[in-house]
């Protein structure tokens, strides 16, 4: 029994001198849902295509299941892949699209019919078997692409930004659907996305890529609550960065000493929703850290308000507040921001 379904060891790739992937090590646990999250050019798609076999790595090994597949061609890897543009065969019906991979595996007749019908039911497209792809909506095409990829019982399911072509509402529906199907099928899934919210909602495990390296990986909550680098903190969610001088017991920022849980670094990050906006004269009890600021702009959005502020030294700050009570602070008013040491995260630059 293997602990990981997919193993990437020391993989590197360059295109004409440009280093796209640099010494990547990653394990993808059996049955897990992992997101490769990063901006465009971070190498996440290249990594996925190396696992799929469309791109050969310059260095390193790729293992899928028990087999080292580094030199195995795509068609012999038993992967399921969903492409960004779905890549449905336009000259085949939905049923023929789904049967394609089964056919390649020598499955015919009644079993073929049964498995196509089963997977169509799973993606709730039972009545669409005889349609052509162009007769389906974007969301339906997406589900056909997913059905076609999972019907062959792949060792690993690879998804290349499959939701990016859908509108927001449909995308959220598909996220729920995708998660359900992945749980039901128990398939080890690797999902490439540049959408941080998608990565947080869908995955058990997130790997953040930047310039060809995995800068941090872990459970979504761990990555969000404890980013280790400035890049990870800024790319996954919003963050306020405070820089200062490392002193006894914390970080000296202006005249304030910011207290930190963990090793003090010259830069710390604080999530905007962890800070509380205290009007002049309000009690500052119960906060480990306090920082004076001036409200620059108030962005009211119904349930919540975003405050854009300037710190004493002009550092731009933002605070998210739920609109539970009272009137929001006016632009130009002087306030104090309060938060706890536990929410003060040391990060590397």
């Amino acid at each position: 029994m293997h602990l990981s379904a997919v193993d990437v060891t020391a993989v590197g790739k360059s295109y004409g001198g440009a280093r796209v992937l640099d010494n990547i090590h990653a394990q993808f646990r059996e049955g897990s849902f992992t997101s490769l999250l990063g901006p465009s050019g971070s190498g996440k798609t290249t990594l996925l295509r190396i696992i799929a076999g469309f791109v050969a790595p310059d260095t390193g090994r790729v293992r899928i299941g028990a087999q080292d597949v580094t030199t195995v061609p795509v068609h012999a890897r038993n992967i399921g892949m969903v492409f960004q543009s779905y890549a449905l065969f336009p000259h085949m019906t939905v049923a023929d699209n789904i049967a394609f991979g089964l056919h390649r595996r020598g499955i015919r007749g009644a079993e073929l019919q049964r498995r196509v019908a089963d997977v169509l039911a799973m993606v709730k497209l039972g009545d669409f078997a005889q349609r052509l792809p162009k007769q389906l909506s974007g969301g339906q095409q997406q589900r056909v692409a997913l059905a076609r990829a999972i019907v062959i019982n792949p060792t690993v399911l690879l998804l290349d930004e499959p939701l990016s072509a859908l509108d927001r509402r449909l995308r959220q529906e598909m996220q729920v659907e995708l998660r359900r199907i992945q749980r039901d099928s128990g398939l080890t899934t690797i999902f490439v996305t540049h959408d941080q919210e998608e990565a947080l909602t869908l995955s058990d495990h997130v790997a953040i890529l930047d310039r060809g390296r995995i800068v941090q990986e872990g459970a979504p909550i761990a990555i969000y609550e404890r980013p280790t680098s400035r890049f990870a903190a800024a790319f996954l969610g919003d963050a306020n960065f405070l820089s200062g001088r490392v002193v006894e017991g914390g970080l000296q920022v202006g005249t304030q000493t910011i207290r930190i849980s963990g090793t003090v670094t010259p830069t710390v990050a604080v999530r905007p929703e962890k800070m509380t906006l205290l009007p002049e004269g309000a009690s500052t009890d119960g906060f480990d850290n306090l920082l004076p600021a001036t409200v620059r702009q108030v962005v009211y959005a119904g349930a919540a308000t975003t405050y854009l502020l300037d710190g004493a030294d002009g550092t731009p700050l933002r605070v998210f507040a739920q609109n539970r009570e009272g009137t929001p602070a006016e632009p130009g008013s002087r306030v104090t921001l309060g938060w706890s040491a536990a929410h003060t995260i040391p990060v590397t630059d």
Partner: protein
Amino acid sequence: MKLLARGFILLVLIFLYLPIAVMALMAFNASPLYALPFQFSTEWFEALATDDVLLTAARNSALIAVATAVLATLLGTAAAVALHRARFPGRDTLRVLLLPPIAIPWLITGTAMLLFFFWTGIGRGLHAMLIGHVALAIPYVVLVVNTGLSGVRRDLEEAAKSLGSTPLHAFFAVTLPLLLPSVIAAALFAFAVSLDQFVISYFLATPGVVTLPVQIYAAIRKGFTPEINAISTILLGVSMIVILGFAWLSKAGGALERR
């Protein structure tokens, strides 16, 4: 303005089609001296049916045109796929080099072929004409198929491979069916190029073995007869059907690709 545009296009079409229409009309005129008034008759077509020389030439033409269509399409499609998919040094140069033969005057190409075939011992005759026509048609096939290929998305073949297709199977199961309208269109075009070819055929023909255009030219030199009109009308009809088929298929191919 709209009326003016329509009138202008009408004028252009008249300019293009009037001589052809008159020629076709005269094929159905009873008078051997093209005399008017027009009297409908099919006697010139009937005369054709017993003209062994013209019939043999027509059979040669059809044979070469079909063979050219098949060979040029096979070779040209393979070349187009290689140029489109494979990456190898000098690919762009090769692609560009396919174009000049289209613009080289047929007289020059014909002379060059005649000299070359004579020098290499290929000689003249049906086989020489076939080689010449295939060479002439290949660039057109490559152009047409290449356009078709750029409409077939590459990720379709990748999807097929991810589902277990070897590269060869992916091509035959996915790309080729989607490319088929373009391939057939290219074959029709190659057929038309061969059927209508005169200059190269004239150079490579031997006295007994000629194609229809060459025979028509030989007959005209002896004097016009409405029989020439009749055979020309048939040739014209076939060419037009083929080219209209090409146009329709190219459009159908385009519509399929856009999906």
